[in-house]
């Protein structure tokens, strides 16, 4: 693992705070490979106030605050996203040493032009939106809870974002790959190329789907280990045709350190419980505490410590995914 002292210090710094907030764990989609159970509902006003108090207490001591919105589908609870984001933006203006960044993982269906403008206004400038292929293929797997397709609306929302004048935004298009959609992906790469390649605000991330614990895991058509690399290489050759690749390719750094490996990163679930990993949501080892009404945190140090073990070994596999082989 090639990691310098400065980067290492950054991972440990108490002047840096990352929050991953689940404003709701409900979702308007039922993607066939999803691992979430949608048990938890919308965040209560008490938890929202707790988070604001946490931020109020923490902000004067910070140089950097990053808030990432996750769910469920966070835009199902758009008002909560806006409310807390507005407060974070206020704090960043109040404390001049504090830089504030914010991003959201959204399925894009509710990311209408007006909602997009509202979010950007409150500092939410980084977006991750998933697509599963061309419309007829995407709609087989990324379906609304009522079974309806979702592609057309997401695509139109993306085209609006592309037409906007905002130059401080970054959109990661996460393109899922499976045995089922690969036959249709060549043409889809050309669609993506025609619309988004060449615009430096858009990054394209080709991601084979995985078994993450959902009810349909056994029937998912996963690419095997030997297929992944050549498939991605081929699709990238169609996507970039040897141009613009540096501008638009989402390249995961070899030295990627997962947020779950960092002590200064905490996930706050919609019921106020605290977690490290956003995938292992039903694993009790991932339940590291809760936020109190006064904004303080009850942390189980014994539950927290195993997630941080990569910082003591600098093992790249552990740092990039501490869930792997978690004690």
């Amino acid at each position, binding site marked *: 693992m090639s990691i310098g002292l400065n980067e290492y210090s950054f991972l440990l*710094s108490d002047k840096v705070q990352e929050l991953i907030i689940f404003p709701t764990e409900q979702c308007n989609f039922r993607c066939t490979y999803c691992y979430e159970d949608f048990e938890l509902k919308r965040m209560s006003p008490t938890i929202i106030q707790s988070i604001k108090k946490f931020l109020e207490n923490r902000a004067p001591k910070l140089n950097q605050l990053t808030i990432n919105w996750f769910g469920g589908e966070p835009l199902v609870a758009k008002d909560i996203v806006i409310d807390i984001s507005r407060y974070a933006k206020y704090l960043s203006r109040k404390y001049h040493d504090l830089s504030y960044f914010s991003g959201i993982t959204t399925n894009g269906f509710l990311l209408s032009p007006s909602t997009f403008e509202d979010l950007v206004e409150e500092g939410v400038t980084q977006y*991750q939106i998933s697509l599963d292929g061309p419309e007829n293929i995407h709609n087989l797997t990324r379906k609304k809870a009522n079974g309806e397709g979702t592609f057309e609306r997401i695509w139109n929302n993306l085209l609006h974002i592309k037409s906007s004048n905002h130059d401080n935004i970054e959109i990661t298009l996460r393109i899922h790959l499976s045995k089922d959609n690969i036959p249709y992906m060549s043409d889809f790469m050309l669609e993506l190329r025609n619309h988004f390649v060449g615009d430096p605000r858009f990054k394209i991330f080709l991601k084979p789907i995985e078994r993450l614990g959902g009810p349909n895991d056994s029937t998912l058509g996963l690419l095997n280990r030997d297929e992944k690399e050549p498939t991605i290489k081929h699709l990238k050759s169609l996507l970039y045709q040897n141009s613009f690749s540096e501008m638009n390719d989402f390249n995961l750094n070899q030295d*990627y350190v997962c947020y779950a490996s960092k002590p*200064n990163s905490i996930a706050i679930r919609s019921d106020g419980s605290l977690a490290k990993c956003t995938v292992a949501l039903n694993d009790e080892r991932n339940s590291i505490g809760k936020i109190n009404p006064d904004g303080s945190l009850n942390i189980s*140090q014994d539950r927290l*410590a195993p997630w941080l073990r990569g910082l*003591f070994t600098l093992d790249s*596999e552990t740092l*990039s995914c501490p869930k792997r082989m978690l004690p």
Partner: protein
Amino acid sequence: MSESKNVIFGIEISSEDISLGPDGSVIIKNPNLFTKVKDKGKSTLPSFPNYQCKNENSIL
């Protein structure tokens, strides 16, 4: 978790050296590491948020 010790940047540290305070602050108990981190921790590098696991090699 059993305590494991390692030498990182010439400083022996263990999993017992880091905890989180009730205000969310990172508490580093090893004074040598703490000094270095405090010095370097003033950096305000932008960070791309990885809100969903993006590691190609990850089990997740």
